[in-house]
C-alpha cells in the first residue's frame, strides 16, 4: 500500500488546483493517505468529498515518496459510486464515446441545437455546465485504416482519441500527413475510447471493456512490428498507467512498452537521424500550457524541444497551472465554479506572457483556456505542420 510512505510533507497540497479554490475539498493528502488509514470495508462509504478531486495527477507527479494520492482517491470514488447513485451527468460523460458517436452522426443538427437556448436548457437539466461552448461535433470523423503498404522501415498505429476523432479530425489528418512527410507509414487501428471518461465517472466496467478491446487491437499491431502513437496526453496516461495499475488489464504492460507520445516519437526520429526536418520560420509568440497529464507521463516536454527548433518562434513554457476542465470534470455543474476559478488563474498567468496564442497537447485544456481567455489555441502538431508547410489536401478521406 503506497500510502504507507506518506510523510505528510504537503508538497501534494501545494500542487492541488482544486483545494486552492474549493474549501470543500480537503486536499490530496487528507482525501488520500490520511483518510485511507480510516477506510474500512466494514462500513458504507460516506466520503462524498472525494468526488471533488479532478484527477489531474499533479499530486502524484509532485510526491517525493512515491505515494499516488490521486489513485487512492480514485479507488475511494469508485467505492463511493458503488454505494450511491451517480448523477445523470456522470452517466452521460462515462458514455461520452457513444454519445459523441451520436453527436457526430447528427452533427450539423446536434451542433445547432447545442448553441440555442433550448440546447442550454437541455444541458442545464442534465447538470452539464455551459460556461464555455460545448465542442462542435464533426460528421466526417476519422475512420479505421487497418493496413498500409509496407514500404517504410518505420510504421506506426495512431491512437487518435475521442477529442480528435469527434471534434477536431482535421488535427488528426494533419498529424497523419506530418508523419507521412517524415517517411513513416501510418495506420489507424480499430480503436475505441481509451476509457478514461468512464473511469473518471465511476464506470469501471465500461472502462475495462474499452480497455480490453483496445489492448487486443493494438496488441496485434505491436506483434506486426508497429509502434503505437498517441497525441492526447490523457489518452496516453490512461493507456500507459491506468490500464496496468487501475484497470488490471492483461497484456497492458506490452502496450505500455510499445506506446509513444507523438512528439516523443518524432524527437526520436530526429535523434536517430532518420529525419532532418527543415523547419521554416514561424513568427509567433506562443504560451505553451503544459497539460497536467503530460507532466505526469515522465517524458519531459518533447513538443517544446521540437518547437525550439523552429526559427522565429517564441514559446514560453508554463507548467505550474492546471486548466481546471480536467476532461469532463468542469463540465459538471457541481464543479463549474471550481473549474472556472482554476481556469481563470491559469489564464491570468498565460496573459502575463503577452502571447497571442496558447499551445497545448490536450484538447480539453485548449477548450477551457481558449473559452475563458478568448485567445486562439493550437495543438503543437499544428505548429509543427505550419513550420513544415503541411496543409490538408482537399480530399476529406486521408
Amino acid at each position, binding site marked *: 500500500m503506497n500510502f504507507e510512505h506518506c510523510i505528510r510533507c504537503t508538497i501534494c497540497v501545494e500542487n492541488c488546483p482544486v483545494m*486552492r*479554490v474549493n474549501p470543500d475539498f480537503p486536499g490530496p493528502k487528507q482525501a488520500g493517505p490520511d483518510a485511507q488509514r480510516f477506510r474500512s470495508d466494514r462500513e458504507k462509504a460516506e466520503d462524498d468529498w472525494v468526488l471533488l478531486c479532478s484527477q489531474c495527477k499533479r499530486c502524484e507527479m*509532485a510526491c*517525493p515518496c512515491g505515494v499516488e494520492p490521486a489513485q487512492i482517491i480514485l479507488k475511494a470514488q469508485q467505492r463511493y459510486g458503488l454505494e450511491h447513485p451517480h448523477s445523470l451527468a456522470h452517466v452521460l460523460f462515462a458514455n461520452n464515446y457513444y454519445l459523441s458517436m451520436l453527436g457526430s452522426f447528427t452533427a450539423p443538427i446536434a451542433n445547432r441545437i447545442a448553441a440555442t437556448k433550448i440546447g442550454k436548457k437541455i444541458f442545464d437539466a442534465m447538470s452539464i455546465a455551459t460556461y464555455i461552448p460545448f465542442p462542435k461535433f464533426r460528421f466526417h470523423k476519422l475512420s479505421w485504416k487497418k493496413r498500409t503498404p509496407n514500404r517504410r522501415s518505420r510504421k506506426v498505429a495512431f491512437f487518435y482519441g475521442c477529442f480528435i476523432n469527434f471534434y477536431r479530425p482535421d488535427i488528426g489528418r494533419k498529424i497523419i500527413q506530418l508523419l507521412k512527410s517524415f517517411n513513416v507509414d501510418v495506420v489507424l487501428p480499430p480503436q475505441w475510447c481509451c476509457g478514461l471518461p468512464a473511469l473518471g465517472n465511476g464506470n469501471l466496467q465500461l472502462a475495462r471493456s474499452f480497455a480490453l478491446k483496445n489492448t487486443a487491437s493494438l496488441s496485434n499491431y505491436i506483434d506486426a512490428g508497429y509502434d503505437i502513437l498517441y497525441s492526447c496526453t490523457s489518452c496516453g496516461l490512461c493507456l500507459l498507467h491506468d490500464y496496468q495499475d487501475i484497470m488490471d488489464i492483461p497484456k497492458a504492460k506490452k502496450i505500455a512498452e510499445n506506446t*509513444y507520445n507523438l512528439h*516523443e516519437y518524432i524527437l526520436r526520429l530526429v535523434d536517430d537521424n532518420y529525419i532532418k526536418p527543415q523547419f521554416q520560420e514561424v513568427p509567433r509568440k506562443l504560451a505553451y500550457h503544459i497539460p497536467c497529464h503530460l507532466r505526469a*507521463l*515522465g*517524458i519531459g516536454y518533447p513538443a517544446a524541444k521540437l518547437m525550439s527548433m523552429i526559427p522565429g518562434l517564441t514559446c514560453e513554457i508554463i507548467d505550474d497551472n492546471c486548466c481546471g476542465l480536467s476532461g469532463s470534470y468542469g463540465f459538471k455543474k457541481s464543479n463549474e465554479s471550481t473549474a472556472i476559478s482554476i481556469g481563470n488563474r491559469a489564464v491570468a*498567468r498565460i496573459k502575463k506572457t503577452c502571447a497571442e496564442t496558447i499551445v497545448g497537447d490536450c484538447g480539453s485544456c485548449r477548450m477551457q483556456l481558449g473559452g475563458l481567455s478568448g485567445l486562439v489555441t493550437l495543438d503543437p502538431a499544428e505548429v509543427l505542420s505550419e513550420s513544415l508547410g503541411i496543409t490538408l489536401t482537399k480530399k476529406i478521406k486521408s
Partner: protein
Amino acid sequence: MSVTEYDAIILGAGVAGLTAGTFLAGRGFKVALVTSGEPTACLSTGCIDVCSRDSNPLTGINGLPPAHPFHLVPEITIMESLNNFQAAMMDMGLPYTGVADENRVVLSALGTFKTSCLVPSTMKAAPQDAKDSIHIITFAGLKDFYPSYVISRRKNTKFSVYDAGVVSTMGIASLFEEKEFLESFIAWLKDQNINEDKIAFPAVLGLESAAEIVQTIATRVGKPVFEIPTIPPSMPGRRLFNALKDYFRKKGGDIYWEWPVIGVEKSGKIIEAVMTASKGRPSSLNGKAFILATGSFVGGGLTAGRDSITENIFNLPVLAPGPRETWFENDYFSFNHGIGRAGIKVDSSLRPEGSLWENIFVCGGILADTEILKNGCGHGLALATAHLAAKSCMEYIR
C-alpha cells in the same frame, strides 16, 4: 528503448540540482534534470542559510569542523554562487536581500529569530531586534499560523483577522495574485488605521508576484510590510523552487518529472546512462557526466534501512555514524544527532570517495558531515557545492 543524449544529467530538482544545471546550461551545455518528485526546497522558508555560527557567515564557515564539505569550496566560489543566485532571482522577479559576509534575521512563526544570509525581499523588513512594534494580519481559518505565538514573545504586538473566503495557504496566496482581491484587501487594511511600526503577514502574499504585491501593500499603506514563513505548505519555498526551475528552463535546460531512476548503465569507470521504468517502457537518458543532488532522507537521496544507510541511484558508499543506536542521542535538542552527519563523502572535485566512478559529482544535502540544522547552512551549502560540482563537471566534459 528510447534514448536521448545529453552532456550532463542532473539527478534531483532541489536548490543544488537546479543551480548546477543552470550553471552548465547557461554555458551552452546540453543539460537534462530528472526527478521523481518535487524537492524539499518547496517546504523551506525560501531563505538562503549560509552559516549561522557567526554573525559573518564566511567566518562561520571557517570555524566549521574540518570534515565539513564547505571547506572544499573556495571562498571565491561561495561568493560567486551567492551572487549568481541573487542575479538569477532578480531576473525572475523574486529579488533576494542580503550580503555574503553578514547574517540577518527573519521573524519566525514562533516569534523567535531565524538566522539567515539571503532572504526574499518579502522578508526584508523583518525586525532585527525586539524594538519595533508590529501589527500582524492573519486570515480567518488559516490553521497553520497563530499570531499568539509571536505576541507571546513580543509585547509590542497586536493582530487583526481578515476573511479571505478561502482557508488554505495556497488558496490565499492564489487570491492575492488577483487584482480585485488585492484592491479590496488594501482598502480594508487602510481602514484598520494601524499604529504599529511594521505590518506582518504569514507568508501568503501571492505566488510569482509576491515581491510586487508586498511592495504595493507597503507603498499604499505607508508602512514597512514583511512576511513570516509558515510551516508547510510554504509559499516562499514554492516561489524559490518555481523561480529556480523556470530559470533553468530559460537557460535551455530540460526537466523530466516523474522520473525515478531505477537503473544505471555503466562501462568500466564511467556511468553512461540512467534509466527509469516510465510506466512499463524503460527509457534512458545518456550523459557524459552526472551530478547527484538527490538530497538527504526527506529528499529521497538516502534511505535508512534497519541496519544500514544506502544511496539510492548509484549505490555509492555512504558514511553512516554507526549502528542504528548511534543515529540519535537521547536529547532531542542536542543538535548533535549522528544522523546529521550521514551522507556521501567527496574529494576536492566533489567526486564520491571510495568509489571508482569518474563522472559522478555530488552536491547539496546528500553530502556527508553537513549537520545542516546545527550549522544553519542548508540552501547556502547547496548553492556553493552546486557551483563547484558544475565546474568540476564542466572540466571533465571538456
